[in-house]
C-alpha cells in the first residue's frame, strides 16, 4: 500500500541548534500535511503543502514540498525546548478516499536546554 517514510526516527539537539526531518513517498503525492504531537498529547495540525516546490514558513519552521511532489521536509531554526515532540508527515494520493491521510512513523525531537 501507499506509505510515507520518515527519517530520522529520533533526533536529539542542543537548544539553539537546527533540526530537519524528511518525508518520502515512492509515488507522487496529491498533498502532504505535517502534524506535531507533544509527549502524552495528540497530533496537532501544522501545515498543508499542495503545490510542487512549495515553501511555507511559520516563524522558525520552514516546510518544503519537492518539485516531484514525492518528498517533503520540515526545518526548525534555532530549536527551543518548546519544540520537543514527535513530528509526523501525512500524505494523500490521488484516487484515495476523500481526505484520507497516511501518516509516517514520525521523528521524535528532544532538545537539551
Amino acid at each position, binding site marked *: 500500500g501507499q506509505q510515507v517514510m520518515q527519517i530520522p526516527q529520533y533526533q536529539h539537539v542542543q537548544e539553539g541548534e537546527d533540526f530537519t526531518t524528511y518525508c518520502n513517498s515512492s509515488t507522487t503525492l496529491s498533498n502532504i500535511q505535517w502534524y506535531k504531537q507533544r509527549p502524552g498529547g495528540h497530533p496537532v495540525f501544522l501545515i498543508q503543502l499542495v503545490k510542487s516546490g512549495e515553501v511555507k514558513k511559520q516563524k522558525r519552521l520552514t516546510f518544503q514540498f519537492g518539485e516531484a511532489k514525492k518528498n517533503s521536509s520540515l526545518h526548525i531554526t534555532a530549536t527551543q525546548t518548546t519544540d520537543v515532540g514527535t513530528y509526523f508527515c501525512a500524505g494523500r494520493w490521488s484516487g484515495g478516499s476523500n*481526505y484520507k491521510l497516511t501518516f509516517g*512513523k514520525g521523528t521524535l525531537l528532544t532538545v537539551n536546554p
Partner: protein
Amino acid sequence: EAGVAQSPRYKIIEKRQSVAFWCNPISGHATLYWYQQILGQGPKLLIQFQNNGVVDDSQLPKDRFSAERLKGVDSTLKIQPAKLEDSAVYLCASSRRETQYFGPGTRLLVL
C-alpha cells in the same frame, strides 16, 4: 469552538474482554476518523465516516473491531474480544475539509 471529545481517557481490560470508546466530533464536521496509534508509531487509520456512511474501513480488523456513527454525529468504536496487541491509543479526529482535528485519545491497556 469546542474540540473533539473522547471518553474514556484510560481503560485497562483483560484479553478476551470487550471495550467501547466514544467520540464527539467538532460541531459541523461531516468527516470522522478513528485511528490506532501504537507506541512509537504514527496514527493508523482504522475507519473513516462521511456523515453516517463508511468511506474507508480497509484497515479495520472486522473480526473483532466495529464502529458506528448512527446519526452522523457521535461515534463509537468497539473491540470484542480484545487481544494483547490491541494495547494502543485510540484517536478520534474530525474534519470539515482537509485539516484533521484530533481528540485527546483513549489509552487502552490489554492485560
